[in-house]
């Protein structure tokens, strides 16, 4: 057999996954490009906007007086945040137990090296509010996709009925031109966003983050369980999204299955992948039929 037919046979037999999808996934700066700047910080948001990244992803949590601030956890980040004088935090301090004034007066974040992102700049600053970020986006007239990841944790944050209107009203009031979508790992929260938007006659795009990783659980066990359920067809991406009335689903790259992604896309579902930080990973998944690649290092994307 000649070389060309042999190569064609190998590619033919092992084919589909080698072919590019011909799409260009939006590269989103995860937590404002946490690989370069302190995650969810003012510096990160400004840096990402100035860098001209295609997408900006950040997390929102409500304070005791229902002000959305940028934070991945329902509490002040135990490693990255300190008291104003630099003293380490004594355990978890829930944001819902602090007013915005107390948060700004008492704490700074980003002034401690981030062990998860050792190359990130170290900058101590107060927590950024959603209002501030909206103002920055308006002023910069940034041409990017805004990805708002809203956090809900039973017992640690307000209920979805409190969170959704606060975030939505601020977004609507800002009247920004950028395309945007809301993600959450809690179907009930996305349903509440959908309900409010429908009531107001406003368009909304939502995405379900799957699977749910409990804050103190084992990521490996959760990933293995999700892999098993998907393999057996016990959980179906479209069903999961349907249950949350979501337009899309955001999945960690480790358990992405290209055939499932292709099926989901055929059914009109958007699929985002998180959090791809290696150049090789970003290059490989760029060829998949994905809508977004979420990364701490947008500069590494092809």
């Amino acid at each position, binding site marked *: 057999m000649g070389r060309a037919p042999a190569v064609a046979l190998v590619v033919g*037999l*092992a084919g589909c996954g*080698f072919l590019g999808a011909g799409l260009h996934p939006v590269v989103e700066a995860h937590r404002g490009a946490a690989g370069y700047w302190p995650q969810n910080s003012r510096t990160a948001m400004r840096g990402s906007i100035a860098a001209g990244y295609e997408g900006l992803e950040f997390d929102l949590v409500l304070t005791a007086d229902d002000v959305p601030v940028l934070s991945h956890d329902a509490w002040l980040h135990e490693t990255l945040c300190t008291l104003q004088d630099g003293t380490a935090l004594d355990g978890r301090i829930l944001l819902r137990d602090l007013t915005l004034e107390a948060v700004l007066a008492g704490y700074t974040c980003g002034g401690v090296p981030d062990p998860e992102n050792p190359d990130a700049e170290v900058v101590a600053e107060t927590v950024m509010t959603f209002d501030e970020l909206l103002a920055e986006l308006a002023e910069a007239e940034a041409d990017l996709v805004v990805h708002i990841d809203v956090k809900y944790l039973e017992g640690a944050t307000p209920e979805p009925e409190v969170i959704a209107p606060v975030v939505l009203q601020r977004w609507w009031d800002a009247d920004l031109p950028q395309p945007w979508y809301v993600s959450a790992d809690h179907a009930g929260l996305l349903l509440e966003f959908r309900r409010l938007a429908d009531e107001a006659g406003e368009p909304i795009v939502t995405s379900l983050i799957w699977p749910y990783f409990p804050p103190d659980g084992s990521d490996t066990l959760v990933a293995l369980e999700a892999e098993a359920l998907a*393999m*057996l067809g016990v959980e179906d991406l479209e069903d999961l999204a349907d249950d949350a009335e979501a337009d899309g689903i955001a999945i960690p790259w*480790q358990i992405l*299955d290209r055939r499932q992604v292709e099926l989901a896309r055929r059914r009109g579902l958007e699929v985002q992948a998180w959090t791809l930080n290696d150049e090789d990973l970003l290059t490989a998944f760029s060829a998949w039929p994905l809508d977004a690649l979420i990364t701490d290092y947008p500069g590494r994307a092809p």
Partner: protein
Amino acid sequence: MIALAGLLLLAGPARPAALIFDRVDLISEDPASWLNYDVPMAGVNATTVAVRWIEQVKVSWRLPTPGLTLGTSLASQSLFWERPVSVAAGLSAGAGVQTTLLLPRGAFADVSWRRGRFRAAVGVGAVSSATWTDLDWTAWDLVPTLGLGVGRR
């Protein structure tokens, strides 16, 4: 489950079926997704590719009806029937149905070559998107298949 049970009843004799080990397919023709979708990512996602390789390793059992085998892996269960095309050359042709958790979701056909304990097969599979949570047999993918196994002579 009903479909597979029905096929077994039609294919097998009235007495309880005696399963005889036939082979282990290290690369399995069903569900045919590992080679097509996972192997290309081996360079960047080796752990997942390894896990999914384990999922697709299939043990096949001969059923009392000549040429009929039952294949079981974590990812799929299949009923496969094949007959010799050329005994001298060790060539056979066959076709089978594939299930996931015993839910019928695809079919495949192949030409296989057997020498000693080694079996290699190339073929084509038609795989639907049906799952127990979404009984949808409207979307199908046609994929090339490759089987590599070792077992009884």
